[in-house]
């Protein structure tokens, strides 16, 4: 049974799965979808109170949390929608134009 990490754009059709089935959960983590981003949120750690409001508002899973504290953005999955910056009660998230920048 082939694992998602062993499938890439060079895999011949004979080695792919019927119906493009994926035989494991959570494989979206492995795919860079942050390259769609046209605007980018910037995290200002010094202004963050870790109120966690931004985390559930993120429509993706681009704000990692560890030990009750939010970490910097997961730019591999952030689409730059700006909702986090909109809901942040503090000046802890600002948006900049462009997808590549940080």
């Amino acid at each position, binding site marked *: 049974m082939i694992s998602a990490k062993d499938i890439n754009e060079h895999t011949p059709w004979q080695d792919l799965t019927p119906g493009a089935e994926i*035989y494991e959960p959570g494989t979206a983590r492995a795919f860079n979808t942050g390259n769609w981003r046209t605007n980018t949120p910037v995290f200002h750690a010094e202004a963050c109170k870790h109120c966690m409001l931004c985390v559930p508002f993120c429509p993706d899973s681009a704000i990692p949390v560890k030990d009750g504290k939010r970490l910097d953005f997961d730019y591999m999955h952030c689409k730059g929608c700006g909702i986090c910056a909109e809901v942040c009660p503090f000046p802890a998230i600002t948006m900049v134009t462009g997808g590549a920048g940080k």
Partner: protein
Amino acid sequence: MNHRLSGNEAVAYAMKQVNPDVMGAFPITPSTEIPEYFAKYVANGEVNTEFVLVESEHSSMSVCIAAQAAGARAVSATSSCGLALMYELLYVAASCRLPITLACVNRALSGPININADHSDSMGARDSGWIQIYAENNQEAYDNFIMAMPIGEHPSVRLPVMTCMDGFITSHAVENIELLDTDVVRKFVGEYNPEHYLLKKENPLAVGPYGISAYYMEQKVMQAEAMKAAKARILEVAAEFARISGRHYGLLEEYKMEDAELALVLIGSTAGTAKAAVDKLREGGVKAGLVKIRVFRPFPGEELAQALGKTKAVAVMDRSEGFSANGGPVFAETRSALYDLRERPHLINIVYGLGGRDMKVEDIEKIFARLADIAATGEIGPVYTHMGQRSREEKV
């Protein structure tokens, strides 16, 4: 067991014998009786199928897709505009490689709105990736449905199967039929045990992911390969079926083709009428024969070329228009299949029977008369014509 059943009841009875896990049910003439009969079986406790009443055919096929992906065996029945409303989901079912079984009771597509038989509905879905098997009569409708699951569910195939029969002519006419014992059917069809399914909790599965350009083409090649592999599986299942029923099926049926010089190629109930015409002509010394295409997807191109290789003139009969301005779909496939022959028969296309327009033995005889003329003179005349319509011009 000898019985007298309509085509719809025969298929509903086959469904009862199989006892599928799920049926997505929505009524449309002339297939309505199938879920109607089946609802009685459910109400009587004769099956333990989850009978899901939905609000459209788009949903009945969606129910089947979800159920089959979950690991259940799902069936449905539809006709005409109902099949058209399933169109998007037909592709989803096939590309997700979910071996759903669908009874298609062939009916004309609108418009003008019409409830009678022709093949425009299933012919419109011929490129959706479904296996298509057509019945000539009630017996075949019953037999084809029972063979569908062992074909589609086989790991070398994993494709959905559409079993087709002509609306009213086959679906509503009551004929003598031999039914198999239910335990024989259950044993023949077996349990559905897919390797991967959504409810297999020890192995989470994602079905129907997005396929970017770097993956889509590979998936289509896999589907194409599965469709090619289906030919062998269909014959294997037919051989197994012959052992339990004594009835023999191939990808196509050759009728009096051994020495035939003039032949028809056709699909569905008109084959019965045409066989009567062939018998009549044979009595008069005409070397007439016919090839009935039973399996249209995968298309038995090589087998058809072989069957027609020694004929002089052939009429390919299409019970759907197609509007290619170059002949119907059966004609296009047949002409393509014959291209590789060193010596090809003369070929004409006749579009007939649209919206339930009748086709009689005498009409078939007229076609053979035209073929005799072509064989004698080598003059084909118009290649693509219609038959049975009122016209100011002389008939075919």
